[in-house]
Every structure is written in structure tokens, then in C-alpha cells.
């Protein structure tokens, strides 16, 4: 299986909406040792003018990866996940992600750059909340090692 550059530009259907609870914000914040009180204490978040707990800056990866799975599992894209190494990640926050939001994420295969037997695959995932507000753009780059490559260290 090799990556198919002709799939560049393809947009997949959005993933099942993700309902973000206060518990999920706190659980993620605890897991990444994000100590800011606005991730844990509703009053602290409200003091900053937020409706509810704010998700840590990288939380949206949880939602984005569900949408990116459509690209990774697309037979026409030809990505062998067992040969994938996460190369780059970028979050652009247009509006805060808050507990109580229902988030919808949709992934586009933004760029496929063939490199020898492998490829660098970049996805762009756009995340909106249930009010229709565009919250986040997630750019993720995966290095897909070619079958001929040596076993590399991620």
C-alpha cells in the first residue's frame, strides 16, 4: 500500500458530534497537568468571562482525531497507519472551546507530499460548536514511512 497523492484536497464527512462535559475538560486538564483554575473551577472560568470551563489548548485533538480517522482509514488515500509517525500539530483557536459545547469536526486531506517510498500527509480539521461558531482549525502532519524504509524511531 502506498499513499495516493491524487487524494489531496478530498474532504470527508464530519465525524459524529462530540459532547464536551465538565468532567471531560477536568479529566483532560488533569492528564496534561494543566493547572489553570479555569479548566477545573466553573467560578474561575466565569471570572474570566467564559460561560463554563475552558478546555486546555490541545484538548481539541480528542475531537480532531475522530475526524482524521476518516482520512487515515480511507482505502483510496492508502495510508498504512502502522507506518505512521506524528510529525507536526497546530491548533488555531478562533473562539474558546467550553464545557457544554457539542463539537463537530470535519477533515480535509490538505497536502500529500510523496517522499521516496513514503509521504508526508497533512490534514486540516475544522471544528465548530453547536451554535455554529468556528472554534478551532487543527493542522496535523503524519509521516508515512515507505515499505522500503528502515524501521525508524518516531
Amino acid at each position, binding site marked *: 500500500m502506498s499513499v495516493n497523492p491524487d487524494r489531496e484536497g478530498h474532504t470527508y464527512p464530519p465525524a459524529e458530534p462530540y459532547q464536551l462535559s465538565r468532567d*471531560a475538560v477536568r*479529566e*483532560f486538564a*488533569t*492528564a*496534561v*497537568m*494543566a*493547572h*489553570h*483554575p*479555569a*479548566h477545573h473551577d466553573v467560578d*474561575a472560568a466565569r*471570572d*474570566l468571562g*467564559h460561560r463554563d470551563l*475552558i*478546555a*486546555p*489548548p*490541545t484538548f481539541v*485533538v*480528542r475531537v480532531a*482525531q*475522530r475526524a482524521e480517522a476518516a482520512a487515515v482509514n480511507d482505502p483510496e488515500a492508502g495510508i498504512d497507519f*502502522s507506518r505512521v*509517525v*506524528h*510529525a*507536526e*500539530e*497546530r*491548533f*488555531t*483557536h*478562533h473562539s*474558546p472551546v467550553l464545557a457544554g459545547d457539542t463539537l463537530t469536526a470535519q477533515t480535509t486531506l490538505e497536502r500529500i507530499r510523496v517522499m521516496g517510498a513514503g509521504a508526508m500527509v497533512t490534514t486540516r480539521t475544522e471544528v465548530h460548536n453547536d451554535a455554529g461558531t468556528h472554534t478551532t482549525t487543527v*493542522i496535523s502532519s503524519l509521516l508515512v514511512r515507505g515499505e522500503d524504509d528502515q*524501521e*525508524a*524511531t*518516531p
Partner: protein
Amino acid sequence: MSTRPQIDQLEKGQSIGEQTVGISRADLIRYAAASGDHNPIHWNDRFAREVGLQGVIAHGMLTMGLAADLVTAWAGDPAAVVDYQTRFTKPVPVPDAEAGSPETHTAWLNISGKVGKIDAEAGTVRVDLTVAWNSQPAPGTPGEGSAGEKVLAKTQAVVAL
């Protein structure tokens, strides 16, 4: 609650702080559960070795997530972090502790940040982060920062002030 930095009082190159974070096998399990990333290279040594690693490594996204705390503390409001990016360049090995609790730290990250760019017109500051891994708990000289092996590159957070 920290006071928000004043953009007109910042200088390029100024430190925003430094912290050292210990990581245990239990931390990797907590991150797997919270993130939904259950790839066994982050919890099963045998599987990790079979795919060519020395053993279990931390999720790159955990390392990226850990480094954000320094920025949100400095910014005063997590919502001020309007852009955050990194490149994953080296793995962070997290071996099983030889004895004791699975909460025993077996890897340490030294995280430091400085003001990389100030855009007064846009009201934004780019913070450049350095994240270095150590297999020992006593990293470098305090204040020196970035002792150990760098595991991320181009780690930049844009903060709206």
C-alpha cells in the same frame, strides 16, 4: 489568578518562566484515557519493541499538552492562547519503574519559554518554548533551562494580550 502581562512592558527574549515535569507510566495511562489515544506503543513494552522502539514512549501530544501549562499560567487566561504548534522530533522514553508505584516518575521534561516576537498592532506575543527530556530527576542548572535532549522543535504559542 496571575495578572496578565502588559504587552508594552515585554521585550523580545524575555523569559516567561521554566518548569520541570515528571512523567510516570500512570501518567501515560491517564493521557490515553483522557485523549482517546490508546496506541499500545504508549503502554506496552513488547509492542513498542516490535515496532522498533526501545520501549514505551510518551504520546507526542502529551508532551505538547504538558508544555502549554507554562503559557496559560503566564497569559492569565487559557483563551488567550490563540495558536499553538509544534514539531515532534524525538521520542520521550518512559520506562517502567524498577520498583515501587506505577506513579513513580521515570522521565522528566524541562520546559522553558521566552518572548519570541511582539506584534503590538495585533496585540499578540509569540512565545517560543523549549522542551527537553531527561532520564534523571536533576536537570541542569536552575535558570539555564533546556538541559537534556530536545524532543520538540518550533514549539510556538501565540498569546493575545
